[in-house]
């Protein structure tokens, strides 16, 4: 798969002197769903703003489908649609007018049939003559999506599309994102909901304090996610593991009261029953067992904490 978007050494220091992004290098593949995860203030919105031309980068180069966003901004921007994080819209406009405006602004000739279908897909057709102020929050967000799609972009940015959205609308939105991906649109979304990234994305990037900590295929992350640990609470503390039990995936806790065994659910044999049999024969008695599965959230938190 070829890359549709590449960022090289993107840096941003705001006028306040705050360094919001440092040396971001990232390639987005054509047709993928890329989820950008990160805590509040990590720099997600800033990064999207720079790609879309809303924020000036301090340094770096961005290329959209072989068009430089500085020198060839028209061709680059034509391809991009942006759904902003905030509900930034003039509430006095009608739904139809604002969508119509967006299409023209991006240099497309009028195509009422397309806009009609777009509004129908987003369940906004009945509201086409309503003013934005008369819509609910979820509808307003869908209007922003309609505006972003009005010029048929090939790359869609969704900055926290499901923040403040109820379960049903969230599900509808996911379905819409999948449908768009099916049509070949590349989608880059930011979210705080890890399960959303888990469910939707092909690849996941984690950003914290302006640094891109990791970009990983979701399945690779899921393998990481598939790791489990078994804690064996011993009846009596021991000082040292018997030599026959010395192995990489088994540790004795500092207090000697428990053993921790790491294994993967991806493998057919977890090795748990074998371990328990070995303990038995070594004469180590235990009173309780606990298993724990690490979640993407934990991986995420440990990344954010360790590398920060």
């Amino acid at each position, binding site marked *: 798969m070829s890359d549709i978007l590449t960022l090289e050494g993107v840096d941003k220091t705001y006028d306040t002197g705050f360094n919001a992004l440092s040396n971001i290098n990232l390639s987005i593949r054509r047709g993928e769903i890329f989820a950008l995860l990160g805590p509040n203030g990590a720099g997600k919105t800033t990064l999207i703003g720079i790609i879309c031309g809303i924020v000036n980068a301090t340094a770096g180069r961005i290329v959209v489908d072989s068009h430089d966003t500085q020198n060839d901004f028209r061709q680059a921007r034509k391809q991009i649609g942006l759904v902003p994080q905030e509900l*930034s819209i003039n509430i006095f406009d009608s739904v139809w007018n604002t969508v119509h405006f967006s299409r023209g602004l991006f240099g497309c000739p009028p195509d009422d049939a397309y806009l009609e279908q777009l509004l129908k897909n987003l369940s906004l057709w009945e509201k086409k003559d309503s003013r934005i102020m008369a819509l609910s929050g979820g509808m307003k967000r869908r209007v922003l999506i309609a505006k972003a799609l009005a010029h048929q972009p090939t790359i869609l940015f969704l900055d926290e599309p499901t923040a403040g959205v109820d379960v049903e609308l969230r599900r509808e939105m996911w379905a819409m994102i999948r449908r768009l991906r099916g049509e070949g649109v590349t989608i880059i979304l930011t979210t705080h909901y890890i399960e959303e990234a888990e469910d939707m994305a092909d690849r996941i990037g984690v950003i914290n304090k302006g640094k891109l900590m990791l970009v990983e295929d979701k399945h690779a992350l899921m393998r990481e996610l598939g790791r489990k640990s078994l804690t064996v609470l011993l009846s009596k503390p021991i000082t040292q593991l018997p030599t026959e039990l010395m192995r990489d995936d088994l540790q004795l806790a500092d207090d000697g009261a428990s053993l921790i065994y790491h294994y993967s659910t991806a493998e057919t044999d977890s090795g748990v029953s074998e371990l328990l049999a070995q303990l038995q024969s070594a004469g180590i008695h235990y009173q309780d067992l606990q298993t724990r599965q690490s979640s993407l959230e934990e991986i995420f938190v440990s990344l954010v904490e360790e590398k920060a």
Partner: protein
Amino acid sequence: MNHYGIKAIYCYELARAWRTIMQSIASPVLSTSLYFIVFGSAIGSRIVEIDGISYGAFIVPGLLMLTILTESTSNASFGIYMPKFTGSIYEILSAPVSGAEIVIGYVGAAATKSVILGLIILLTARLFVDYSIMHPLWMLMFLILTALTFSLLGFLIGLWANSFEQLQIIPMMVIAPLTFLGGTFYSITMLPEFWQKVTLLNPVVYLVSGFRWSFYGSADVHVGVSLGMIALFMAICIAAITWVFSTGYKLKP
């Protein structure tokens, strides 16, 4: 050139004016009519002719200028300030439109509105005072140039403003006084010599004078000077806007 983009901005802005027609057309027409009634008919009948023109007719160009200046400035400043205020500016910044195209859309719409308004006021004035237009084409040209220039100024104000107070302060504190003192209601030759010299520092004098010349053929300063001053002022505004866009000042963090 993204002409669909320019058209989108231009039509959007004109539609906004249409939506608020009471505020954008009716109210300036009403207030200017009041001026005509009070100064033109009521008081004017007791004031002697100026340069052989009845007082009511004399103030028509100046009053028209006053309205064009204030309306152009406030229209254009409001037009660009609103998307900044609502945050919907993100869309314009992310669109494939250049700075020049954004300016053409907004300023063009604001100027169009002012010119239409000016023509409506001109027709309304006819109900109250008798005036003639000696050089109609020049009149139209002055009208359009002034509307464009002050829409450019308004656009700059809208870019600069961070609040609604700031948005209103320049039209109120600067443009209105300059217009009143710029020979709207009198010929500057009626002033003592010293004040005549001071008045020549007021750019509005040149606009009103040139505009009045196109009506009655008499002027405080030569019409060529008036034209030159408008051109100069327009060039300054365009240069300032070009600079603003090249730095992203106030629009892009």
